[in-house]
């Protein structure tokens, strides 16, 4: 009889402890990205990098002993679905923070919802300036289009010494913002845009535009776009016999760009946030681990999503799994060592301040070419 009672007590205790750890032991973080549809490749990169980070954290005991659970949703870059996802994350899944591994459209429609619910969100690579303006709970670790555009302009006129420049601009928010910053910067140093043409996402043929550029013979061709288009533009440029220097931006930053453009990629200079020659060991370890797990090199989208996720994790580590405290901790982030460089701080608006990396393609790989840390260029707007 006594044994029974004792046994019962012990199992009751075990149950309490069990439930207790279950309660205390799981921190839920929300994540959304385009996993199906036209942007599925970027969604996969974002998801892969974040999953890798998650495994590493959970293997080493989670955050302060609590396991982390990632709630992953597919947004298909569709605004209606994104709004539904945001409500679901807040209400059903009760996440304490959210990472956007998605494009501008899903991120900007969900930002006000998270802000209102008091759940902090960190956007990894969405560029729309209105995202962080949704309120104090919204942050961004990636560059604003204009900041990167300015940095690209700086590279064009001061690093590559170009006087006459032709531009191919991708016709979405990213391309437009980039173009604006680029124009602003090169004008200051007397650079001249001799040709600018916008093209749609998914464009495959640049021959008409390139033939025109060849006739104009500029010092530099600056292309904004994602690696699919970028690789084709660069390849076709060389096939047409265009010899000028080509500059790109973070959309080029993918092993797929190197693969698709082949030899034509050599000599292309890009502005991005991931420095492949970064001496910091954890960067090299990440690159190695990613390669081992997924059989390919990580890209800019993956590295940015990883950083956005780690900013959240770091904040939880400091402040515990309380959304309000997490927000405060993120806002107070100082000198966060990210894959994509050191984030000195987040400004009032929630924009990260970090240097812009300049990489060059040599022998089919990205390598260090320079870094832009002039505050005049990299300081994001404050309001």
């Amino acid at each position, binding site marked *: 009889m006594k044994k029974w009672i004792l046994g019962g007590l012990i199992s009751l205790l075990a149950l309490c402890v069990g439930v207790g750890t279950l309660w205390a032991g799981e921190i839920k973080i929300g994540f959304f990205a385009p*996993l*199906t*549809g036209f942007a599925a490749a970027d969604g996969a990169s974002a998801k892969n990098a974040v999953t890798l980070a998650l495994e590493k954290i959970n293997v080493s005991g989670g955050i302060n002993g609590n396991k982390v659970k990632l709630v*992953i*949703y*597919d947004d*298909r*870059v569709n*605004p*209606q*679905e994104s*709004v*539904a996802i945001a*409500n*679901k994350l*807040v*209400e*059903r899944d009760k996440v304490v923070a959210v990472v956007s591994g998605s494009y501008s*459209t899903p991120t*900007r*429609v969900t930002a*006000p919802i998270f802000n209102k619910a008091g759940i902090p969100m960190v956007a990894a690579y969405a560029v*729309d300036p*209105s995202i962080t303006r949704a309120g104090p709970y919204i942050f961004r670790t990636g560059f604003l289009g204009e900041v990167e555009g300015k940095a690209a302009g700086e590279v064009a006129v001061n690093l590559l010494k170009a006087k006459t420049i032709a531009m191919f601009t991708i*016709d*979405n*928010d990213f*391309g*437009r913002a980039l173009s604006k910053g680029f124009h602003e910067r090169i004008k200051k140093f007397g650079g001249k845009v001799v040709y600018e043409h*916008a093209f749609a996402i998914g464009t495959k043929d640049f021959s008409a535009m390139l033939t025109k550029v060849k006739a104009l013979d500029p010092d530099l061709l600056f292309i904004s776009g994602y690696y699919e288009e970028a690789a084709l533009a660069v390849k076709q440029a060389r096939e047409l016999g265009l010899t000028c220097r080509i500059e790109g931006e973070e959309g080029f930053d993918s092993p797929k760009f190197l693969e698709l453009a082949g030899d034509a990629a050599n000599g292309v200079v890009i502005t991005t946030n991931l420095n492949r020659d970064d001496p910091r060991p954890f960067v090299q370890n990440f690159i190695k681990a990613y390669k081992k797990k997924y059989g390919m090199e990580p890209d800019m989208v993956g590295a940015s999503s990883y950083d956005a996720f780690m900013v959240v994790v770091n904040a939880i580590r400091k402040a515990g799994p309380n959304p309000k405290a997490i927000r405060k901790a993120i806002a107070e982030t100082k000198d966060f060592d990210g894959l994509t460089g050191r984030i000195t701080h987040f400004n009032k608006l929630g924009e990260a301040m970090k240097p812009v990396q300049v990489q060059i393609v040599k022998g089919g790989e990205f390598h260090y070419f320079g870094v832009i840390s002039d505050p005049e260029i990299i300081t994001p707007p404050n309001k």
Partner: protein
Amino acid sequence: MSAYIVTVSITIGIYVILAISLNIITGYAGQISLGHAAFFGIGAYASGMLATRVGAPFFVCLPFAVVVTGIVGAILGIPCLRVREDFLAITTMGINFVVQAVFLYVPFFGGALGISNIPVPSIHGSDMTKPEYLIMVLLFILLSILVDGWLTRSWTGLALSAIREDETAAEMSGVNLTRFKVIAFVLGSAMAGLAGSLYAHFMSFISATDFGFAESIVILSMVVFGGIGTLRGPIIGAIVLGVAPELFRPILNYRTLLYGVMLVVLMRFQPQGLLGIDSFVTRTLKRLWKKETRGYEPAA
């Protein structure tokens, strides 16, 4: 009710209005349109721009959007009168691309960033809550159903179905093709404009990419999936195809695949649509209904 369910319901409600409106053009008048999202977009932009640029209240923006979209529908309906059947379908698709490109490229329409910060409608000086918004959407669905009911019972409705069955025969028997086709286009477009306005003030951000060809296909699929040419069909189609992707959400990798497969399977085995005339479900429901009523008969 949870905000998640309310949000999904509002989205589906907007699709119900869109499906009803497309059904007027494609289901009743038989003019296949592959560009309905263009009118949805015109309504959204008209309403969103009036609200953000002029600061007009929602209850001014909404009728404005309806009128503007109706007028544009009439203008764009004119080239559509020149072409028939599949040529018309592809022309409407072309119109969709051109309208979208104009929104994207003309700076007046906000370019690639679209229109931001469209205000939530307010009643009695305070912002409408989500459940209140849902109630409003439901009221507009009711209005759309009433318009639809009036149409199908009127002479216009008869003329439209005559056009659908055989244009030449309809013309021979004195139906003014131009007039009735334009009526169908204007009515359908204006109703899509209404949906656009509701969408703009619900999402608060709109951009050209929201109103592309793919969106037109989504709306058309809803109409056909539920049962084209009936009122119940488009409504049920919008609900089923709106809820399905949410239900499939946990199976991340296969949800879009499943959506495609659903369309194929239904068209293969129930080409009338789920609740179309003489579909399996409709017949079964009718049979059950009859049995039940017959069951009560002996009492009398």
